[in-house]
């Protein structure tokens, strides 16, 4: 990559790696595609620590929308969680301008045929039970990444991340 933009796929790979590890391991080669390379490592070094966290939040938001569109009977169960999760994302975007800019850059990047810059939309879950399980797993992944980021952050940002993590843990508990 010759510019400072980072592909959404690379960022999401870092987010997934982070959630799986339960920590903010940005030094890991978290790309979804292929083995680690020097350029991938260099790319990850440029990623703001909050970018993968926010990307995971956006993925959760997308899943909420997908599930509620497929299963409107879940609105009563999920709408408050979706609304609060969106509020978390908005607050974090405002508090983390570098990460917000990186995410905005991935949204406007021109897709490359060699390295797709967006994750294909997942099909909706097959049934309500599967949908709720998917949402709960995404919520738990998000809570884990928020909590890990709070420990690594400082000051008011750490408190905001911790608060978002606590709220998200509550969502997961209600969905368990």
């Amino acid at each position: 990559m010759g510019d400072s933009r980072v592909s959404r796929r690379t960022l999401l790979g870092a987010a997934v790696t982070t959630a799986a590890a339960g920590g903010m391991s940005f030094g890991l080669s978290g790309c979804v595609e292929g083995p680690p390379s020097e350029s991938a490592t260099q790319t990850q070094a440029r990623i703001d620590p909050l970018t993968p966290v926010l990307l995971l939040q956006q993925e959760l938001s997308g899943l909420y929308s997908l599930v509620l569109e497929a299963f409107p009977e879940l609105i009563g169960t999920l709408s408050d969680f979706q609304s609060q999760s969106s509020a978390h994302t908005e607050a974090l975007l405002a508090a983390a301008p570098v990460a917000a800019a990186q995410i905005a850059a991935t949204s406007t990047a021109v897709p490359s045929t060699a390295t797709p810059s967006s994750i294909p939309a997942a099909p909706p879950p097959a049934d309500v039970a599967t949908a709720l399980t998917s949402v709960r797993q995404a919520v738990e992944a998000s809570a884990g990444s928020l909590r890990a980021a709070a420990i690594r952050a400082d000051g008011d940002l750490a408190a905001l991340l911790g608060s978002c993590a606590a709220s998200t843990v509550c969502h997961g508990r209600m969905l368990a």
Partner: protein
Amino acid sequence: MSGPEIEGLQAALRAEHSAIWGYGVVGAAVSPEARQFVRDVDAAHRAGRDELADLIRLGGADPDPAEASYELPFPVVDAAGGLRLAGELEAGVARGYAYAISQADTEETKAFSIAALIDAALRQTSWRQQAGSTPVTPEFPGL
């Protein structure tokens, strides 16, 4: 441990003191079925208070003592009021720990305070669920 980090822990400790006092009021107000949960929660807050006091002493300071009594945010005259007060107490504890997170220098103190903030948010959720309040979950606990 820095001065701000100690002060953050002291704020959380003061919130725990207040909650322990408040749960005495809650226990007298709620239904008999809810009292065991009140006892469990009270025990959790006492454990949190003791852990905070130990951390503060390890940091070289004296833990702030409890007040003789605290002002209730509203009169509690029935079980519904008790449930509402319990939710408010957890919100107060969450504020104490959120402040502790913001003042912490070390990852150990942040991890401890975040875990306690999560516990407070979960208890607040449980009380709000029992009270029939919506939304059940706090949006920004502690802030």
